[in-house]
Each structure stands twice: as structure tokens, then as C-alpha cells.
């Protein structure tokens, strides 16, 4: 009898914790819309910060631009090495010794705290190579941060492609690179793109690495590689921490979360497309 009561309690706990997760996400989003929504208008999106101290009026346009520059640069830097590593792991190395080691290294890299990547890029790019606090340094830091994400998601997308394609191509005498280019990659394209979108969202929200390498309180974010940029997550931190404007902080948070969730949802849709495609 006692056991029955305990089981009932545990069952109740499972329901509570499952529903709590749902409530937390809804609460976060509804609260952000409630507090930040009223301040989002065309002026907020399209103008630069104004007022005294700077940021109490105006908008966040340079921060949006800066974040887009940063994630674009990160993607450009790490897409090719990431995809090549994934191709090695899924098509060339497979279960070899080297592939095992690379897999382990990539996995460990995914566990490295992002502030440590910032620390490394600060010493290497900002100080040693003399880039200074700059878009270039921030893009590099984010590129290192998303590299393992790109490798793992592309590798899994490639591995999900039906093994029969490889066997058939091989038995017909088609070369490996041709098979890869014309048969395997097109079938993994949706999954690979989904991984890229996810990693872009991850990069857009990262604050610690750009805080020490790229971000400025105020900048034009023109896209010049060796100049500091504004970025949405850092701008949010400054607005709140320096007590500039709580309302604008909520609005900035809402813009940032919408951007990241949009990228995540697109990735989810592409992933389900991939599942259908790789089964064909």
C-alpha cells in the first residue's frame, strides 16, 4: 500500500515537472512581449541610440547590424572547415583511429566554455596580432565556438543518408568524390543547412566571447573588420547593467529572442524535411 502511494506521488511529480518546463518557456516569452513589445516600433529598430546617457533614447539599429555582421563572419570562417571535418568523419575516416580522435577532440571542443574561447582570441587576435577590439576578433571567437556544432550536425546529416546510395555508387564504379558531390551532399543538404541555422542562432546570442573581443557600447557597425561593433546581447547587458533603460532592455531582449527563435524554428522545419528526404 505504501508503495502504491509512493508511485502515485512520483507520477504526480513527473506530470508537474513536464508541465513546468512548458510554463517556464511560455512565461519567458509572454513576459518579454508584455514588457518589451510596446517599445518596439520602426524608430526603435531603425535608429541609432540617442539621448544622454547614450542609449536612453533612439533605437538599436547598429546593434542589429553588428550582430548580423558577427554571425555572418563566424559562418564564413567556420563553414568550410566544419563541413570538411564532417565529411571526413562520415565518408572517409568512419571508424578509423584518426576519426575516433577527431571525434573526441570535436566533442571536447563543444564542452569548452565560451568565455575561454574569448580569452584565447583576446590574447591571440586582439593583443598578439594587434587587431584590437574588433569585428574580426569577435567573428573568429564565434567561429571557433560554432565549429563543433557545425561538425556534429553536418556529420549526423551525412550519416543519415541511406547507406545503399554509397554501396550502389561504389559498385557502379563511380568515384568517391563524385558520389559525395552529386548523391550524398544533395540528400544531406537540408540537414546541413538546419545545423548552420542552429549555429547562427547560437552565435547571435553568445555574449561572453564577444564581450572581451568585439563589442563596444556605441559603434556604427559599418562592417569594417578592424573596428569594434555593437551587438544585441552586449547592448542588452549594457542597457540593464548601466541602468540606462529597463524598457529598452526588455525590448532589446525581445528582438534578440525573436531572432534566435526564428532561426531555431527554421532549423526544426528543415530537419523534419531532411528526415523525409533521407528516407526516400
Amino acid at each position: 500500500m505504501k508503495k502504491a502511494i509512493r508511485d502515485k506521488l512520483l507520477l504526480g511529480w513527473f506530470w508537474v515537472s513536464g508541465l513546468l518546463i512548458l510554463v517556464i518557456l511560455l512565461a519567458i516569452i509572454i513576459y518579454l512581449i508584455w514588457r518589451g513589445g510596446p517599445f518596439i516600433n520602426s524608430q526603435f529598430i531603425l535608429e541609432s541610440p540617442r539621448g544622454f546617457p547614450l542609449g536612453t533614447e533612439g533605437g538599436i539599429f547598429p546593434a542589429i547590424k553588428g550582430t548580423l555582421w558577427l554571425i555572418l563572419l563566424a559562418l564564413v570562417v567556420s563553414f568550410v572547415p566544419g563541413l570538411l571535418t564532417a565529411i571526413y568523419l562520415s565518408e572517409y575516416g568512419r571508424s578509423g583511429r584518426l576519426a575516433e580522435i577527431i571525434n573526441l577532440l570535436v566533442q571536447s571542443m563543444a564542452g569548452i566554455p565560451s568565455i575561454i574561447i574569448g580569452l584565447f582570441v583576446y590574447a591571440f587576435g586582439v593583443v598578439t596580432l594587434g587587431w584590437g577590439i574588433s569585428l574580426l576578433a569577435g567573428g573568429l571567437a564565434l567561429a571557433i565556438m560554432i565549429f563543433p556544432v557545425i561538425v556534429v550536425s553536418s556529420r549526423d546529416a551525412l550519416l543519415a543518408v541511406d547507406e545503399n546510395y554509397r554501396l550502389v555508387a561504389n559498385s557502379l564504379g563511380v568515384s568517391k568524390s563524385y558520389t559525395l558531390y552529386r548523391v550524398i551532399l544533395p540528400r544531406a543538404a537540408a540537414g546541413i543547412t538546419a545545423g548552420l541555422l542552429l549555429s547562427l542562432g547560437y552565435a547571435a546570442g553568445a555574449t561572453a566571447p564577444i564581450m572581451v573581443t568585439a563589442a563596444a557600447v556605441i559603434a556604427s557597425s559599418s562592417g569594417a573588420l578592424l573596428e569594434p561593433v555593437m551587438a544585441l546581447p552586449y547592448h542588452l547587458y549594457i542597457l540593464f547593467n548601466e541602468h540606462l533603460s529597463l524598457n529598452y532592455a526588455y525590448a532589446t531582449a525581445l528582438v534578440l529572442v525573436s531572432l534566435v527563435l526564428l532561426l531555431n524554428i527554421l532549423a526544426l522545419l528543415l530537419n523534419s524535411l531532411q528526415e523525409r528526404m533521407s528516407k526516400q
Partner: protein
Amino acid sequence: MQYPDTEFKEKIISSIIISAATVSSLLLLAMLIFILRESWPIWSQIGVSGFLSGSSWKPLNTPPEIGILSMIVSTMWVAGGALLIAAPLGFGCAVFLAEFSPRPLAAILRPVINMLTGIPSVVYGFLGAAVLVKFFEVKFDLASGESLFAASLILAIMVIPFIVANSEAALRSVASEYRHAGIALGVSRQYLTLRILVPLARKGMLGALVLAFGRAMGETMAVLMLAGNTLRMPGSWFDKGEPLSALIALELGSSTPGSFHYQALFAAGLVLVLMVIAVNIGINLLFNRLQKRGDDFI
């Protein structure tokens, strides 16, 4: 049979791919070596034990005092506390998703968990500071509501999705024979889950917890905005503290490159990275030990 020039082309392509993969994966080691090099003067002059056990951080004094014990303790409090809160909820949710949730609800919950991981940590930190800390200040009449506990609470929300996803995968990977045998014997769903599936998936669920611990230790923004950032040794969970990640983020920009202060921050970074790596290696060893003891008693 392939033509010689095709074969040559294939060789070139495969060697490009191999070298690209090798070089970019070695970046991890390059980073560690670089950070070790930058922090070297600290290890040779102050020594490992002096740096780790010193509890006073005054890098600008002459002579500078640099010890990071209070930051290490803060990091452990924040991350350990986060797990204490997140584990029961995360495991509960994983079991719910894997066994008890009605299908349509699970179809909503999975993307929701995905989205929770997507929300940037600075947003969690901001909401924690603007809502939770304010609430503590009003409710308990404190001058400032920041504490290691507040940081743990927000970190818990951030790591729950990881615990859920990994433990659910562990529960699902239990061989279906056990499920079928249980159903054939007519045991209740609760009995099947709690006495058969959960014990069998214990290893994977423990692994999920340890991974979450590593993540929590390295988290920066939320911790920076919530832990209070005082350099004293925290006496309890409800004290303020400054974890390692926050220390680096706050002081790196203002330290002069090449100075003792600068080198000490790299030494702190190295300690943080090694702690995270040690945790990850730790679970691998643990798994192997458990594996050797046999699967009959997991």
C-alpha cells in the same frame, strides 16, 4: 577500374579533407597550449598550490596577491546548486516524456525544450536580475538580492533542457525486451518505469547530469549578472560570490597585456577549462568502471 588521373584526383581530394579535419580539430590543443603559455609566469613564480589555495585576489597590489580559491568555491556552489535544483525536475520531465506523456503533449514539449536551449544566456541573466533578484529584494527586504543561490536558480533553468534531452535518450535506449517482458508479466506502467527502466538507464542519466555540471561551470553571462561579484570567500549558498567565468569576463578588458594581472586571468581560465575537461573525462572513466562490473548490476 578507375583511370589514373581520376585516381590521382581522388587522392588529392581525400588528402585535402583529411588535413582540413586534422588541422581544425587540433585547434583545441592549440588553444590550451596558448593559454598555458600566457599564464606560465604564474605557475612558475607562485606555483600551482599557491595559486589554487590563495584566497586573496589583489593583482594590482605590490607585491600582487593572487589566489583563486574563493572563485573556485563560488563556481562549485553555483554549478552544484544548479544541479541540485535541476536534477529532480530534469529527470522527472525526461521520464514523463519517455513514458507517461500523452502523444500530443510530447509533440509540443519536445520543441519547447529545444527552444529553451536556444534562448541566449544573457536573456536568462537579464530576466533573473530584473525579476528574480528584485523579487528577493522586496520579499526578504534585502539591500541587494544577488547571490550564488539566485545564479543557481537561473542556471538550473538553463541546464534542465540538456538533462531532459540526454536522459530521455538514455531511457529510450533501454532494450525493448525489458519493456515487452514487463508488459507480458502484467506489471503496471509505474512499476515498469520506476523499477525496471530507470535503473537500467541510470548510467546514461548520470552522464546527462555530469554533462550539465560541466556546462553550468562554464556559463558566464547569467552568473555574472546574478552572483553579486564580490571577491570574498562565500560562506554559504546565499552569499555573494564571483565564479571564475565572471572574473575573467569582468577583468580581462581592464588588465594590461603582459602584466601579472593579465597572466593571472589566463591561469584562472586554464583552471576553469581543466575543471570542465576533468569532469568530462571523469564520466568516461566512471562509465568504463560500471561497464566492467557487468550489465546485470548497473
